[in-house]
């Protein structure tokens, strides 16, 4: 019995747990939380064993497939890429589920919560191990549906229901693009086969797709007078799907609002499931991007821009979860940027990007769970009302510090000392440097390095505002129960050491994704199809470049320290002299407001952050809302045509017949 034979259980067990918890959860301990935990734990063990197997023998990836209908199949493909993802998703999800026993303790709707998160995890695992893109899309939509249910979990809050709808519909925009990509891909492949598909060949399998890249690359379509390769269209439509799910600009608008759900759900969405699906999709179909002209460059630019843009947004948020949300968007931007670097470094890009994805999952889950712990303790999400929690919650503060250091990327270059974020983020930044060096296009690198500075500032701003200074809240904070702190500690350990242990072997392992017994591709050939010049060997970067990310991170820490801990500029005194009552009531609150408005806005915010924020709120939101409003009012106008008087309906029929006869006549004339 091979462990691979149990692969189908990985998504199946959490799915079964969903059913059981939904129906019997009420009668069980803690809303039946143990069932999903057991199921996901089992999935994790299977995934881990499979990963170890593949690690030992990367040539023997697991591929199983059964006929579904027509020329489609259902199947499982676990190669290095999928194996790593599966392990990460099940592991992080497991920890979050354990934590949720404590976090959701007082919620009456626990069974529903655990059922839905279990299904959410199952769907994400399904996305990861699909061997064909259609099946992947099905699970992809299921992920979206679950996120809808979970973000709107506290539906008594109107804002939660609205956020759920926004998330669902915004990601749907991406999904529609994804579906369009699949349909075009299918039609093109069908054409490549001249409509005669041999028995047992399933067009939408990844292996089959990659085998016919040459045929696809030969197909061109004319759009607005430009010759565009079918492959580019398909790749960019897939990327559209990724933009929606992974919260890239301009479809990132749903992510910050998705904070309306329970914090554990946010952790699940931001760390393990959902948002990583988009990055995974691009990594999974990377050969198509590599052989599509211009596609990777667009990916790189969009990723870089998102990383910087979201980081500026993170600076001005006062809601602790919103800061983290923008941080996620920014870090996802890094991952996408990393993938885009494949234009120069080839498959190494996947390794770098996925490595950051895994590490990010650890420390972002940790950040969210810590934030959840804080919120659980003092009952607010507003950082202006926090402060001084260091003493009350030492474990949370400690783990949060670890996570912040990891996010900011602290470490010593040239050694194996450093947080996981240091190794993975700096790897992306270095790749961006290589990209700049060889293509003389420095914009991605500049984006990346600026975003790193801002990342460090906003995350320590969060840390100092939350844990240091005086308490600004009457609630008596207390450390969370051990069911919550143990997952924190586990994640903290991973955030600290995982990066150091595994960088080089990880990248090599990832490269085997497209070189094994199922999928074996000639990467250089694909890159020539896409007009990319690959640089497979790039030497050690200059010392300054190696140190720059760390210098930037330390600089960010210092700026935050000075502004938020030492408060070198204390504006509150100016205010208090004018209005003592105000000082009494809103001392700290006001200080921060003034600080933001007077000082920071003059330097950074007004120029970048606020205009970005403004742009985001006014422009993007207006466009998204505006399209909705225009269609709505069009609907409102057009429904009035339906007068309700039957004679008018007859008139419409007659008019229709008349117009059709004229149209028909015209067609006859033309033909």
């Amino acid at each position, binding site marked *: 019995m091979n462990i691979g034979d149990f692969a189908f259980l990985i998504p199946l067990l959490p799915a079964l747990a969903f059913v059981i918890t939904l129906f019997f959860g009420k009668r069980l301990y803690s809303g039946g939380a143990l069932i999903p935990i057991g199921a996901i734990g089992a999935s994790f063990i299977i995934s881990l064993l499979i990963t170890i197997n593949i690690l030992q023998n990367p040539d023997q990836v697991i591929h199983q497939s059964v006929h579904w209908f027509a020329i489609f199949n259902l199947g499982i493909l676990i190669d290095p890429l999928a194996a790593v993802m599966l392990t990460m998703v099940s592991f992080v999800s497991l920890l979050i589920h354990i934590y949720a026993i404590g976090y959701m303790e007082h919620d009456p709707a626990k069974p529903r919560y655990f059922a839905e998160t279990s299904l959410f995890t199952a769907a994400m695992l399904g996305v990861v191990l699909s061997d064909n893109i259609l099946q992947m899309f099905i699970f992809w939509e299921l992920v979206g549906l679950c996120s809808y249910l979970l973000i709107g979990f506290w*539906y008594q809050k109107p804002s939660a229901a609205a956020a*759920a709808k926004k998330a669902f519909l915004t990601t749907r925009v991406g999904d529609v693009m994804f579906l369009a990509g699949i*349909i075009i891909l299918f*039609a093109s492949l069908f054409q490549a086969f001249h409509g005669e598909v041999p028995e047992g060949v399933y067009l939408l399998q990844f292996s089959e797709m990659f085998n016919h890249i040459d045929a696809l690359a030969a197909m061109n379509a004319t759009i607005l007078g430009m010759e565009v390769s079918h492959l580019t269209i398909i790749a960019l439509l897939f990327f559209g799907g990724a933009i929606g799910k992974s919260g890239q600009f301009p479809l990132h608008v749903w992510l910050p609002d998705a904070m309306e759900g329970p914090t554990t759900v946010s952790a699940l969405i931001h760390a393990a499931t959902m948002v990583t699906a988009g990055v995974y999709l691009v990594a999974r179909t990377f050969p198509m991007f590599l052989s599509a002209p211009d596609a990777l460059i667009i990916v790189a630019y969009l990723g870089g821009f998102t990383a910087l843009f979201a980081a500026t947004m993170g600076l001005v948020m006062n809601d602790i979860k919103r800061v983290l949300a923008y941080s996620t968007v920014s870090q996802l931007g890094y991952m996408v940027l990393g993938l885009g670097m494949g234009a120069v470094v080839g498959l190494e890009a996947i390794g770098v990007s996925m490595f950051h994805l895994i590490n990010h999952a650890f420390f972002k889950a940790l950040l969210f769970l810590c934030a959840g712990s804080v919120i659980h303790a003092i009952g607010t999400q507003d950082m202006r009302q926090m402060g001084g929690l260091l003493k009350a919650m030492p474990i949370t503060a400690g783990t949060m510090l670890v996570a912040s250091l990891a996010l900011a990327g602290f470490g010593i270059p040239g050694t194996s000392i450093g947080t996981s974020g240091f190794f993975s983020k700096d790897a992306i930044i270095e790749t961006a440097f290589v990209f700049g060096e060889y293509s003389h296009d420095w914009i991605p690198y500049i984006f990346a390095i600026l975003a790193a500075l801002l990342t460090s500032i906003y995350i320590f701003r969060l840390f100092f505002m939350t844990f240091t200074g005086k308490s600004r809240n009457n609630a008596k904070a207390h450390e969370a129960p051990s069911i919550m702190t143990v997952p924190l500690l586990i994640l903290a350990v991973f955030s600290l050491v995982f990066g150091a242990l595994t960088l080089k072997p990880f990248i090599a392992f990832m490269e085997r994704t497209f070189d094994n017994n199922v999928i074996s591709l000639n990467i250089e050939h694909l890159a020539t199809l896409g007009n990319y010049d690959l640089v497979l060997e790039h030497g050690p970067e200059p010392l300054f470049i190696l140190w720059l990310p760390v210098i930037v991170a330390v600089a960010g820490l210092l700026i935050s320290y000075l502004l938020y801990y030492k408060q070198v500029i204390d504006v509150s005194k100016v205010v208090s002299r004018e209005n003592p009552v105000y000082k009494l009531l809103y001392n700290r609150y006001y200080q921060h407001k003034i600080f933001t408005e007077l000082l920071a806005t003059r330097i950074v915010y007004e120029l970048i952050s606020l205009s970005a924020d403004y742009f985001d709120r006014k422009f993007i939101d207006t466009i998204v809302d505006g399209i909705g409003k225009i269609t709505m009012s069009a609907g409102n106008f057009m429904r009035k045509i339906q007068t309700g008087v039957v004679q008018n309906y007859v008139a419409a029929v007659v008019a229709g*017949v008349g117009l059709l006869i004229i149209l028909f006549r015209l*067609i*006859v004339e033309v033909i």
Partner: protein
Amino acid sequence: MEDILLLAPEIILAVTALVVLVAGLYLKTEHKVALGFISVAGIIMAIALTMSIMLAKTSASMFYDTMVIDPLSQVFKLVFLSVALLVSIASVKYVSEDRNTEEFFALLLLAIIGMMVVSSSNDLITLFLGFELAGLATYALVGFEKKNIKVLEASMKYFIIGAVSSAFLLFGMSYVYGMTGTTNIPGIAANAHLLVDNPIGIVAIVMLIAGFGYKMSLVPFHMWAPDTYQGAPSVISALLAGASKKMGFIAAFKVIIVALIALNAEWQTIFAVLAVITMTLGNVVALSQDSVKRMLAYSSVAQAGYISMAFVVLTPTALAGGILYILSHAFMKAGAFIAVAIVGFMILVGNKDARDTDHIDNFRGLSKRMPITAFALMVFLLALAGIPATAGFVSKFVLFSSTIEAGLVWLAVIAILNSAISLFYYARVIKYMYFMPTEGGRITEPAPYAIAMILALVAVLVIGIWPEPFIYWASEAANVLLI
């Protein structure tokens, strides 16, 4: 004589209808539930027979080539019979306290016979007769609650527009007959060159499109549909959207694709225009509806636009996709309307004189009050929006990809954009059901309604998860159209 046995399903239904009608005279109102069971039994027998004929892949023509049996006819008969089964099961509850139960079931069965005759017809005469039989029976069914002015208004509009359209249809047919000298469909196809370049031919085709377009509810012949679907009893709306509309498609397939294939260049363009207008108007207007039934009606208009794409693309895959879509839509829409009927029942339990039972406010917190119905309705709505693992996704996928394959990318893009819009109004109902608080208590669904709804749910999911046999039969049916 052997041929007659191939029409056994129709004969069984006819006998059942007569038996129900007469038996109803001698039963007391409280015993009339039995009539529902008789009808259901008759329909199940008819389904079994139709299926056995279909699986044997029988092809035959009878009555001097006015009726044919082939995969196409059998597939459509199964669509009609399945919807009839759902509707009649649900109606066991709906008409349980009515003294005219026998009329209801007899009319339902007659309507189905009419639709089955259309799907088997090979001659304009039989086609028109079947069309009208189904039409007449449904006019009466829509107006079944004859004390309710809304129902009567729905019935009146349906009747007037229906009668006008059948006049158009007949007028068009008379021209086709006059030009080609025959009413036999293959005969017309053989003589269709006589219609080309003839002004009367143009008028005839447009009138035929108008006549069928009314049943298919293509814009601008759709105006009756929202009013009628909204006003009619929900189970009858299920019948109209699930079966009666599909009869328009099979009739149009037969007359326009088979008989008038020689003029395909012209009517393909016309259908392209109609399809785009229909799906866009349907989806956009559906956005701002507060009555769920009316929203479903507009969604049904939009879906007719998608299905009409099959006329434009006209490849075997596209037609198979269209037929598969027809099959899936029958279950999705019928199921959705039955779910709305259950909600209506729930509201009426709470307040006997409640009006507008299908108003969206009544769906608040449905997941608390009737979890099964809420879940089923959610699945139906998601299926209508084309979310994967449901019937709606598979059929949309086949239809849209065949459109792109045929090079009509612009049409596919419009359709995909439209299906993106459609999610907005479906999501709204789901939001009301799952994310809105309610004061009402929990209510158990009446068994007949629940059975019908769950059957539809199973069908939607089965087609979505294991579409292989359905696609196979849809392609078999499509092959009949394009010989």
